[in-house]
């Protein structure tokens, strides 16, 4: 009797849970579906949002490739890549020291957290003024340094957590076994932390890739990154709606692919260290 009651109860919760997942799934998929449809529609066809069967046009896709979306994608990728490389290298060095030697104490930890939560509005204005002075405004470099300002702290913070999760004994054992500290790091600590490094790198990349605020203000013209380019489809005349859909898909699809491949690693990586904080 009681087992039946328990069985039904669990089934109901699971059903509710699955129902929720389906709903969430639909709410994620439908907007993207609409985007895909819209990117193949002409201006007139876009006036009817429920139009499902129509003659598709490639004009929107041609337009965005003509309008420099690819160049801005390349710029975004370059900035994100360089930012992440720097952040991982510098961040992991510092994170190791903070984790193992408590370098900087609480001040270091808090500063890193504080830098993550700093409103970008504070830093963007000095960056802009400095870029004017250095005659570097509207260049890719003008965007790179500000991106470091928020990616480096995030990556370092994650890595501190991951290094913390590696027990000291493992390292001590390696030292006892005759390895130098550097070798111990390479052979023992790094392999343990590498899923975490992967997760942090991905996070950092996405943060930089998605940034609009800094890029909009510091490089609005010639050196626009992809989010700025997408924002430029925000139009005065609705005729550009199809091109906008296409531009958004250019930003979205690579990321979706990525999310497909990394979610497992991300979950494992994060549960391994960062939130143990």
């Amino acid at each position, binding site marked *: 009797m009681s087992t039946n009651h328990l069985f039904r109860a669990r089934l109901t919760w699971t059903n509710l849970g699955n129902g929720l997942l389906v709903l969430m799934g639909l709410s994620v998929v439908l907007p993207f579906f609409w985007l895909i449809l819209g990117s193949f529609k002409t*201006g*007139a066809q876009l*006036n009817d949002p429920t139009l499902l069967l129509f003659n598709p046009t490639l004009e929107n896709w041609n337009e965005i490739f003509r309008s420099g979306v690819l160049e801005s994608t390349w710029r975004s990728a370059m900035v994100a890549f360089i930012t992440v490389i720097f952040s991982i290298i510098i961040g992991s060095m510092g994170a190791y020291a903070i984790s193992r030697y408590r370098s900087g104490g609480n001040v270091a930890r808090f500063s890193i957290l504080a830098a993550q939560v700093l409103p970008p509005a504070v830093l963007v204005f000095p960056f802009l003024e400095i870029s*004017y002075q250095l*005659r*570097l*405004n*509207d260049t890719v470099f003008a965007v790179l340094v500000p991106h470091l300002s928020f990616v480096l702290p995030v990556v370092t913070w994650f890595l501190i957590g991951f290094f913390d999760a590696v027990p000291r004994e493992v390292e001590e054992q390696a030292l006892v076994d005759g390895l130098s500290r550097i070798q111990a790091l390479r052979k023992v600590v790094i392999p343990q932390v590498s899923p975490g490094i992967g997760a942090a790198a991905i996070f950092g990349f996405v943060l930089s890739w998605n940034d609009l605020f800094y890029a*909009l203000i510091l*490089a*609005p*013209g*010639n050196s626009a990154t992809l989010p700025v380019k997408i*924002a*430029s*489809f*925000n*139009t*005065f*005349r*609705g005729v*550009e709606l199809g091109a906008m859909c296409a531009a958004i898909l250019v930003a979205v699809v690579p990321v979706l692919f990525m999310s497909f491949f990394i979610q497992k690693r991300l979950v494992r990586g994060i549960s391994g260290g960062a939130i143990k904080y």
Partner: protein
Amino acid sequence: MKGVKVKKISKVVRLIAATTAVAVVLVGCTSSSEEPATDTTATSGTVRVLMEGVPDTDIVSGLLAEFNAEYPNVKIEIETASYDQMRDKYVASFTAAEPTYDLAILDNPWVGDFAKAGFVKPLDNLIASTNGYDYEDFTAPLRAIGEADGQIYGVPFYNYALGLIYRSDLVSVEPTTLDELAATAKSLTTAGRAGIAMQPQKGYKAFEEWGNYLFAAGGTLYTDGKVKLTTPEARKALQTYIAMYKSSAPKNSLNWGFDDALRSVSSDKSVMMVSYNWMLPTLNNPEGDSGALAGKFKLATMPGGKQVLGSWHWAIPSNSSASDAAWAFVSWISSKAGEVKRVTAGGAPTRTSVFNDPTATAKDPNYFTTISKILSNAEPLCQGSNCDEMINAVGTELNAAFAGKKSVDDALRAAEDQANKIQAD
């Protein structure tokens, strides 16, 4: 013997004289390339300019071939962007080490600030040295917009004065007063169609549209050099606007801007709209988005005859890398002949002489008569500095009144106070 020496000397003298003469001619030639008046068609350079994605830009692109027939060595590269992006891109170019643009078009609110910041050059000397340019031929309000501190920083490119666009098959009598406009809109409102598509969107759009209502009510924006909106005319204009929004505008259109209103009118969901005068040809275009409605639209002045004026001006950035070539283009396209070409192709006029030109006005003489009337009595929303900020502040307060969040008097007072505070800085 003496004869031979004389011959030799005179040969030398002749040689020296010839060399000097050649040198003088050469020097004369090179220096004259800096004075556009003398041998301009030899000017060369690449001129990069950023323009908005509007019909008048397409018309300019279409005229480039003719321009290059006269100026074969000047290459014009037009980049288009949406309005929102243009100003920031220009400011970035003006402040960069290497300019991205060698020629600029300025929207009227920007002129004062850019002139004061030294972003663009004064054009007085260039205008004076260009034969037959006739700067005075531009209508007076348009000239005034491009001038700051007694110098000319921009010459008119095209105007976007507003007017009343309506369906001639539904509206038989053009309203001559604000009350008549309200009554007409209300009487034409049916279940499937609104009497008038309005653009109450906070900021620029709200003020741009409401300004016309203010003028229709007999009001003014500036009194004694200061913004004064706490007047009975302004109050009536605002009350009428709000009443019209509630009774005659499409449902839930409080944050409608230009494209929403245009879509509504061109798809037979609204009868009228207050919009840019040059939208008429676009609406009446049989190949455009209006479909079956093409040809049914007409343009009238706002009731009362006065409307809001907007305009774009050609300007040369202070850090331009091709000033001469840029001026060659500007002087060509904004000359009397260039204007006729532009307007014949459908561009919005800026010179008084073009209204008398039969080729330019051939397509629709009535339309041009109306535009001539519109341009003769039009005023921009803002004069002086910090115009972007002033227009946004007034437009936000107006939107608050439209939404019923502030009373008419409170909104007008707040708009006036903020506008004056902003422009005093």
